[in-house]
C-alpha cells in the first residue's frame, strides 16, 4: 500500500513540498508538476533538505513542465526521474491513492 503525492508549488515560494515530504512514508512517490518542478533543482538553497526529506521516497518530475520552464534536465537532482503525462497516469494507477498537496 503506497501513495502518490503531487506537488505543484515552488518550494521557494511555499512550504508545500516540505510538508508533503514530511508526511510521506517509505515506498511513497512524489511527483512534482507545474511550478512544483523547481523543487527538483540541484544546487539550490533547498536541494539538501529536499534530498534528506525525500529519503525512502521516489521523486519524479513532469517532463513537460520542466521543458516549459527552460530547466535543463541535467540540472535536476540525481534522485529525480522524469515522466510524461502518460507516466503520470501510470504513477496514479501504480499507487493505491493519490494525494494532491494543494
Amino acid at each position: 500500500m503506497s501513495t502518490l503525492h503531487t506537488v505543484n508549488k515552488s518550494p521557494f515560494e511555499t512550504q508545500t513540498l516540505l510538508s508533503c515530504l514530511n508526511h510521506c512514508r517509505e515506498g511513497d512517490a512524489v511527483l512534482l508538476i507545474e511550478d512544483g518542478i523547481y523543487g527538483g533543482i540541484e544546487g539550490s538553497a533547498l536541494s539538501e533538505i529536499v534530498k534528506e526529506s525525500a529519503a525512502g521516497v521516489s521523486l519524479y518530475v513532469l517532463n513537460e513542465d520542466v521543458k516549459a520552464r527552460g530547466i535543463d534536465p541535467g540540472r535536476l537532482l540525481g534522485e529525480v526521474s522524469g515522466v510524461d503525462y502518460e507516466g503520470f497516469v501510470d504513477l496514479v494507477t501504480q499507487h493505491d491513492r493519490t494525494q494532491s498537496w494543494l
Partner: protein
Amino acid sequence: MKIGVVISEGPYTHQAADTAYHFVKAALAKGHEVPRVFFYHDGVNVATRLSVPPQDERNIQKNWTELAKEHGIDMVVCIAAAQRRGLLDENEAERQGKDANNIAEGFRISGLGQLIEMGIQTDRLVMFGD
C-alpha cells in the same frame, strides 16, 4: 481503471485546468476510463461559454467540451460554487431571476454529492488546483 478528476482553479489564471486536460487525455489514451470531471472552487469558471481567449492561446473551455463529447465524460459544475461565482445554466438563471446564463455545452450544474459519488465509484481520484 476508473479515474475521477477534480479541477479546483479557474482557467488561464492557474495551470490546473491545463494539466488536468493533458492528464485526462493521457489516461484515456492508455485505455483508462474517466467517467466524470468535477469542477469546484474557481474551477467552475472553466465552464463559461463567454470567454474569448486571444487567438494564439488555447481555448480551455472548448478543449474540455470537445474531449468530453468524444469520450462521454460527465462534466459536473458544483452548484454552490457556481452560484457564488456567477455561473448559471438556463434553468438556474430562470430560478434565480437572472437575465442571462453562461454555461457552455457539455457542462452540467449539480450538487456536491456528485463529487462524493465520484470518490466512491472510481478507483482513483486526482485533484488539480492551486
